[in-house]
């Protein structure tokens, strides 16, 4: 075995690959070979490091240098300076935007300081396509421990004691779920992994599957052992080609090593896993819909009970957990429930992975202990709001969640706290909004999503969400009336109260929470016909500032509808009744003479 002195870890997550991290790896290997260093320096393509804002990332071990926004053409410099001469390439190091200092290693970055990586422990650390590296990190030791030292009941008890709750949105206690599935006798049972991540902006499940696929396979095997199942299914959306590829490789390797299949680790335990592809319907994240979709039926929910643990896939007891939940399992078994349940809060143990997106400096994937406050996440880890703008709101829980404001920033994040303040954990999406975001438009955006994603089975969700969206269209279109607010509230409450599944039961949340927290903004739109954030086109008017206009006629020439008139070298004016608010004139004007408000 070659003993490498230096490891170059290159992020191979979907985001960084889109920024040519494949080429970076290629160039690194080529350059090392050119310099005859291929036996001294190992290049490893890992899973996601999380700091997507600054990707692609190249990390150098053992001196722990963290290069950001690396381009394929930077490779020569990294090899010549860092590897050969031992000098860090300063220009590629992370610069702390607050302290204006460069930070050479990730440990000292605000982004990583408060994180505890449990579910993401191997992401950005090992080569996900190499089972040996997973084994080197105690891979499959937990399964081995279960099979040789623990009874199925012991396993369930450990998971129960750990306090782990489902990371997919509901927060149902995982151990309890396993226990129910274990208690239901059947000739065949199934373990299902829900990898149908659907929240806009959320990509933690994808990252785990891309960065540490074996953790999920191992956890499913452990679950299978605990409940007496022999078959596993991973329901993954077809839009995740890289995750699918890595899962296929991982499953093949695990079979080759005898870690999936018959007589695993010399015991009579048998378990194997197949992939099932989803077409990316949001509602298929709901477990009964997911099961129907896997059965080849229409992806729509059915009423529970019966729960999948009683009657699931093909009518057999089935345990469904999501990717992140499974990713916690092996380490809980290895380190013990008591290690895990010391992390987090009273009612929520462990960590949660969040996908930070929106108007935040450090867009990316983070993992923090339950109980971390929103403020810590947004302002410390997330590095605050982009371009020094003012924080306005954060939407947690995706389209099912609500938006939280300044006054909620010190809320310690856990399942119950977020519900108490009118939002929810969901799968961990966190979209940050600044002063330029219109909250009515934001609510409309989410409704558009739910209207699109409703399966159509129950009337309130199928039709009600459409009607909500129409009222929001009316308000943002400048035709709102005060009675619309009452209608929005009533329809929202009824849709929540009567919908069949979680989608409809939560879809009005963005409306209700913006009505609660940004009521004045609705009034501005309805009474004053104004959108102060400047996002609702229909409520805006384009003006020419006379003193700035030199009469160059550029705006009049670019206007597609002939709404601008004026003599040469004299101030022009815009006829608001013709103007379609396309903004072409504003863009064209070189004298800042056209404004919109």
């Amino acid at each position, binding site marked *: 075995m070659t003993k490498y*002195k230096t490891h170059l870890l290159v992020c191979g997550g979907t985001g960084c690959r889109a920024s040519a991290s494949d080429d970076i790896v290629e160039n690194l290997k080529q350059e090392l070979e050119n310099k005859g260093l291929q036996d001294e320096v190992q290049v490893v393509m890992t899973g996601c490091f999380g700091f997507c804002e600054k990707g692609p990332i190249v990390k150098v071990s*053992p*001196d722990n240098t963290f290069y950001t926004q690396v381009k394929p053409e930077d490779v020569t410099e990294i090899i010549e300076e860092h590897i050969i001469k031992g*000098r860090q390439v300063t220009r590629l190091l992370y610069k702390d935007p607050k302290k204006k200092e460069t930070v050479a290693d990730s440990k000292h970055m605000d982004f990583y300081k408060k994180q505890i990586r449990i579910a993401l422990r191997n992401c950005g650390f090992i080569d996900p396509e190499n089972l*040996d590296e997973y084994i*080197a990190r105690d891979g*499959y030791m937990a399964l081995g421990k279960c099979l040789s030292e623990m009874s199925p009941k012991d396993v369930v008890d450990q998971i129960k004691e750990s306090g782990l709750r489902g990371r997919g949105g509901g927060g149902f206690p995982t151990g309890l779920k396993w226990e129910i599935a274990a208690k239901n006798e059947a000739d065949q049972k199934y373990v299902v992994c829900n990898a149908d991540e659907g929240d806009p902006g959320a990509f933690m499940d994808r990252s785990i599957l891309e960065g540490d696929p074996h953790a999920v396979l191992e956890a499913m095997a452990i679950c299978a052992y605990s409940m007496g199942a022999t078959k596993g299914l991973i329901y993954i959306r077809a839009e995740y080609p890289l995750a699918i590829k890595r899962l296929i490789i991982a499953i093949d390797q695990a079979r*080759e*090593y005898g870690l999936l299949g018959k007589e695993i*680790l010399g015991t009579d335990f048998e378990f194997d896993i197949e992939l099932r592809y989803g077409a990316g319907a949001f509602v298929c994240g709901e477990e009964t819909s997911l099961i129907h979709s896997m059965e080849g039926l229409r992806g729509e929910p059915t009423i529970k009970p019966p729960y999948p643990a009683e009657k699931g896939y093909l009518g057999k007891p089935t345990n469904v957990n999501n990717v992140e939940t499974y990713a916690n399992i092996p380490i809980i078994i290895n380190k013990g429930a008591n290690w895990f349940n010391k992390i987090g809060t009273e009612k929520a143990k462990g960590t949660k992975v969040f996908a930070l997106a929106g108007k935040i400096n450090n867009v990316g994937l983070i993992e923090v202990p339950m109980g971390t406050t929103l403020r810590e996440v947004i302002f410390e880890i997330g590095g605050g709001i982009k371009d020094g703008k003012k924080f306005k709101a954060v939407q947690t829980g995706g389209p099912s969640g609500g938006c939280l404001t300044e006054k909620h920033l010190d809320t310690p994040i856990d399942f119950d706290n977020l519900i108490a303040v009118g939002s929810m954990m969901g799968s961990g999406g966190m979209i940050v909004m600044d002063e330029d975001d219109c909250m009515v438009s934001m609510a409309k955006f989410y409704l558009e999503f739910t209207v699109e994603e409703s399966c159509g089975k129950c009337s309130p969700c199928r039709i009600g969400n459409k009607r909500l969206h129409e009222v929001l269209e009316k308000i943002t279109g400048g035709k709102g009336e005060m009675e619309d607010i009452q209608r929005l509230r009533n329809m929202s409450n009824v849709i929540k109260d009567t919908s069949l599944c979680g989608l409809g039961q939560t879809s009005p949340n963005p409306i209700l929470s913006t009505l609660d927290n940004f009521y004045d903004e609705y009034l501005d739109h309805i009474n004053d016909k104004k959108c102060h954030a400047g996002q609702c086109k229909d409520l805006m008017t384009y003006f020419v500032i006379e003193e700035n206009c030199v009469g160059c006629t550029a705006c009049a020439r670019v206007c597609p509808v002939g709404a601008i008139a004026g003599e040469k070298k004299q101030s022009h004016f815009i006829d608001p009744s013709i103007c379609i608010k396309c903004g072409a004139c504003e863009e064209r004007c070189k004298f800042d003479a056209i404004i919109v408000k």
Partner: protein
Amino acid sequence: MAKIKTLADLKKMREDLQSKVDLREKADSPESYVQIKVGMATSGIASGAKDVMDFMIEALEKRNVEAVVTQTGDMGYCFAEPTIEVKKPGEDPIVFGYVNIQKADEIIEKYIKLGELVEGIIPVNYQVIDDK
């Protein structure tokens, strides 16, 4: 690849494979290991620093010393090259000059293992590499 038949096989395999990633594990918490930085600017390489580094890596592993060996640029003591900086957990770093393989061996055996000082310490007001 043959199938892993028992948990013992898996454990053995893990021991064998751990060296593949221990470099990365140590990198995540270098302060709990002996950290050795070898000055490797052009002048350092010319004066044999690379051989010293290779020797250190191999010797430390053979002698079961948990250490992180990294290279660094010019340490500012060209006169005394090759130079190495050794930082034991919880202690201040010390820089040694004129390190050849024999000297390196002595540093491992006496300073790192037993805490005895050996000749060749550069005692002046130096800058530690991190401050540079």
